[in-house]
């Protein structure tokens, strides 16, 4: 069985369309989105439109929780004022440009999805099984911690997003935790492409493939400028390096980036 997971989309509907086309070519059995449909990019209504038209199921991220409850910030979970400054710009723009019908639709999304595939119990969450905005970074998620999450939440495979960086860890007793990465912005590696995740699962064997998605990022950058989104956001789309919301990065991930 082949599954596709779409991490945070952050209004990058061009990347979403490219990813969905790619998924169509790859004989995928089921596709799920993992929340944070808005933020960062332009025209936030276009992502829900695409997902609803294509009939793709998924879960709430902190953005959907905040937008659907008409909260005044994204509850991203940042602790540094610089991160929160840019997060607020993203959220205010997204809130103002998301129609009420979509905010109400977001309220209907579940917080998690569970199913069994290939004999394994899958648990799809946005941040972590215990908190919607918990950051599961590779360098701060030891195996024993992840195994405890699998134990506590009755899962063999946990799939999450929220951090923006994809990774996969094989754990004891054939269990796995994987962060599906995001379609919304590049992976802070100096490359403009974004990522989604394929999982082949058969007879309790899991094979994870992170798929690079190339899309018209220059067009996205032009649209962001036309919407007066911060030039720092545009720079990230064009260069592949994060320029904002990076104080939250653990030292390992921070050192790997440009800024």
């Amino acid at each position, binding site marked *: 069985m082949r599954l596709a997971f779409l991490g945070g989309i952050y209004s990058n509907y061009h990347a979403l369309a490219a990813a969905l086309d790619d998924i169509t070519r790859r004989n995928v059995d089921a596709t799920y989105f993992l929340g944070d449909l808005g933020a960062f990019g332009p025209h936030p209504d276009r992502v829900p439109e695409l997902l609803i038209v294509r009939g793709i199921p998924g879960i709430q991220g902190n953005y959907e929780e905040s937008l659907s409850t008409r909260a005044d910030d994204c509850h991203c979970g940042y*602790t540094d004022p610089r991160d929160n400054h840019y997060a607020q710009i993203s959220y205010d723009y997204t809130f103002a440009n998301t129609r009420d019908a979509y905010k109400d639709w977001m309220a209907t999304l579940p917080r998690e999805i569970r199913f069994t595939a290939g004999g394994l119990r899958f648990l799809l969450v946005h941040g972590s099984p*215990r908190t919607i*905005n918990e950051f599961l970074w590779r360098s701060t998620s*030891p195996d*024993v911690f992840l195994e405890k999450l699998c*134990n*506590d939440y009755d899962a063999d495979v946990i799939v999450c997003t929220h951090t923006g960086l994809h990774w996969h860890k094989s754990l004891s007793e054939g269990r796995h935790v994987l962060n599906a990465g995001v379609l919304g912005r590049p992976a802070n590696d100096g490359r403009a492409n974004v990522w989604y995740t394929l999982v082949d699962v058969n007879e309790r064997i899991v094979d994870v493939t992170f798929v690079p998605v190339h899309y018209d990022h220059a067009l996205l950058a032009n649209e962001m400028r036309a919407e007066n989104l911060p030039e720092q956001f545009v720079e990230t789309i064009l260069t592949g390096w994060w320029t904002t919301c990076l104080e939250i990065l653990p*030292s390992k991930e921070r*050192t790997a980036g440009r800024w």
Partner: protein
Amino acid sequence: MPSHLDPVPVPVPAPAPAPGVGASEATAFPPAPGAGAGAGTGTGNKRHPHVQLRALDTLWFQVAGTICNIECTHCFISCSPRNHSHEMMSLADVQRSLDDARGLGVREYYFTGGEPFMNRDMLAILEATLKQGPATVLTNGMLLRPDVCRRLRELFDASEYSLDIRVSLDGFDAESHDAIRGKGVWDRVMIGLRNLADAGVNPVITVTTAAEGVASEEGRARFLDVIRGFGFDRPRLKVLSLFRIGAEENRTRAYEEWERLNAESLSDEEASVLQCSSCRMVTSKGVYVCPILIEEPEARMGATLGETLRPFQLRYGACHTCWVDGVTCRT
């Protein structure tokens, strides 16, 4: 260094309780006195709320005890060269708790003192820790010799987990810093920071609110410029709360009677956002609820981690600071 913790403007929403920890331990331990509608045991006649341990995410080590090469006027545990209230911990001491921590699914490790780099085992302790999870060291920055910094960089590169070095400053310049930390300390720290920069280690600079105006937007911006001036082009800054205990009682004032949490204004569930819902502190004398209260005998919860998974009553002035400031250990 004397550890202080970061004020965050808004506490994050309370997460759902993790199954396993609360549930299983609730049966292992009797309900704490004062829980729910019961009478409190704390100060005056207030009923203080209890905080459950949701999960042991964060494990602290008082790795240098209360022994420090300087004597800061704001230190909440009054560390000094002569304070042996808590002693240094050896690699073997730390390793025992690291072994326990694996079974509990601990996520991250913090080392403080006193001054951690006065501990001869410190680099070996970090090497052992980084085999099983991310580590952060809180230092006054005075003992960061070139060879120590190079070794820290090697340890950082060799581990799949993050290693953070936090260096404490208490002012924008030598005069304000040394007024709290002692004459000549600023200059020693500048050498240590240069050695870190040369080794390619980007520290988190921590600064207490004793530094005039640092908590404001302008103050932060100014401090970030100061850090850039040290040679770090990606300045990392964390502003820390002060606790009115230890030496700080004399520098400013002690907690007043009203500065306590009570169960009418803070429910047990709301208390679950506090750091003590996910941390414990190991010292040479046992395991304490958190890094702040190690001089409170009743904050010692047991000899081993396994004995400390029960709820804790928030009866101290420092608990009030943690709640009001939204203190978090994280960078």
